[in-house]
């Protein structure tokens, strides 16, 4: 076994919660990849004869107002939700860290200009800004991703800027510069790999927020359209039935959504512990 793997195993054995979060993450990825194959029923097939049935052996999570199997819909929805969250976080990670690294490295006018952009985004309540962006660009899943990416951008940009700034005059950077490397090369090969660990913690914590944000947007009717299975919209569909006691329609997608976010947050905390023992909570 390689030393890296052995270290990882040691860390996971040391902290069972983080290990659990890793397992949960793997499960979510598996659901996203193989969801349509393991779903027991067609998530879109409605059958009004069995509408609004509580959980039973045939339908573990019950059926909704159109008689669709909720378990199947929850499973199939994992792919869309994970796609939105991963795509949004990837976009904000790439562009946010690019902007942040440039700002932290060059300082001066570039720093001020990028700082102004970031401040402008942060001047809005973030969810409200996301609503506005989706309303302006059009009501599609793609725009949900862009909106989520934009509101998360400041976190990456600020972090990358601070971490880069702290390393700008570090010894290893000086050494790379003295041996004749270009700025771009130093940034890509020396600075970026060094700021990557704290950024990965941010990515993991952000995934949870991105899923919540996307589900919130589709809960108010933006982005994902029915009958597409998606956790937020499923909770919205179940909301009308809560007051008449049909709890299972909203409960199960809500619980899975919660579990996914919880898993990402634990993962983020765990990663932070692995990377920086001083910041342990």
């Amino acid at each position, binding site marked *: 076994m390689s030393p890296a793997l052995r270290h990882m195993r040691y860390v996971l054995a040391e902290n069972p919660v983080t290990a659990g979060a890793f397992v949960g993450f793997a499960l979510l990825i598996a659901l996203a990849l193989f969801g349509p194959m393991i779903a027991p029923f067609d998530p879109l097939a409605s059958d009004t004869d069995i509408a609004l049935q509580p959980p039973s052996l045939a339908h573990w999570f019950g059926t909704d107002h159109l008689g669709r199997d909720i378990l199947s819909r929850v499973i199939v929805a994992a792919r869309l939700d994970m796609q939105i969250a991963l795509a949004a976080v990837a976009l904000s990670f790439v562009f946010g860290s690019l902007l942040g690294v440039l700002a932290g490295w060059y300082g001066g006018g570039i720093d001020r200009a990028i700082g102004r952009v970031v401040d402008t985004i942060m001047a809005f309540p973030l969810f409200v*800004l996301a609503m506005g962006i989706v309303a302006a660009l059009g009501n599609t899943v793609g725009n949900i991703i862009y909106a989520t990416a934009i509101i998360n951008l400041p976190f990456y940009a600020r972090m990358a800027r601070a971490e880069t700034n702290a390393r700008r005059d570090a010894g290893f950077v000086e050494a790379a510069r003295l041996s004749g490397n270009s700025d771009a090369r130093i940034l890509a090969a020396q600075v970026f790999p060094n700021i990557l660990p704290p950024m990965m913690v941010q990515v993991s914590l952000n995934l949870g927020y991105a899923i919540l944000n996307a589900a919130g947007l589709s809960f*108010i009717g933006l982005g994902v359209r029915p009958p597409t299975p998606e956790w937020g919209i499923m909770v919205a569909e179940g909301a009308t039935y809560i007051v008449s006691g049909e709890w299972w329609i909203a409960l199960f997608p809500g619980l899975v959504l919660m579990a996914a976010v919880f898993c990402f947050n634990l993962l983020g905390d765990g990663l932070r512990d692995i990377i920086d023992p001083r910041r342990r909570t």
Partner: protein
Amino acid sequence: MPVLVSLVLRRLLGALPSIAAVVVVTFVLTRALPGDPAAYFAGPAADAQSVEEIRRKLGLDKPLPVQFLAYLGDLAQGEMGTSLITGQPVSADILARLPASVELTLCGLALALAVSLPLGVAAATRPGSWVDHMARVISTAGVSLPVFFTGLLLVYIFYYLLGWAPAPMGRLDLFASAPTTITGFYLVDSLITGQFATFRAAAAQLVLPALTLGLFALAPLTRMTRASMLGVLGSDFIRTARAGGLSRGTVLVTYALRNALLPVVTTLGMVFSFLLGANVLVEKVFAWPGIGSYAIEALVASDYAPVQGFILTMAIMYVGLNLMIDILYGLIDPRVRIEA
């Protein structure tokens, strides 16, 4: 105090760029909106010429900078267009609905503060105890809760199962009439006019949505209070105060908490950002007639003027809140005043 006045003035000046940025972004979002407003106002039967005429009348044929100036002029007069659903000016609609949202947000925040501060302090004074563990669970679980889902769960438990709460249908049930409008806050208005039955009814409707928002804000506040209290309690001046024989209460509240509150106040800005967003979702769950549900209704009907008005109002409110937090920070931290 002239020092304080100059501090407030400097903060006000510092907020100007944010307000400018907010206005520019809202304008850009308006122009990017789908659909041609001129064609919309002209109606489906209009020919190209009358659409062109309306476009000229609305000023949409002018270059963007000129349109931006016109937009600024409208905003300065409180003019934000007309809602197609209600037929009312957006500014009037928003003003009428704003108190409902503000009342809800403030009650939620007050609940969260009332629980998170004592909890955070108790957790920090007894690290490793059950209080500490509870605080940790709350602050990890709390950030994972989708706020619309917590709201629905509370409705199911307290309305459907236990029957303690009234139906989640707005600010008052069908049988109560709204109090005379003075401030727009039902709780305050009903107390001023002495309508105690209305106060009870309004409070009963408010409990669940405020609790939902409060649960949401609880996590970051508890986490921050605990962390900053822990930091402060380990510092030298606390050891000195203890060694000097000051009572436990004096050390905890006057010495520790007052210093620990500084980072908590700073987090309030971020908490407000999330709270104003969560407010929209909570309003939808509880059919709360605030500006959030106004914006959602407008979004669903593709009525964009109210959405723009809503975003601008929220953003200006958020800038204002951050300004207040900055000033508050100056009030509780004398060092900031000296720098100013």
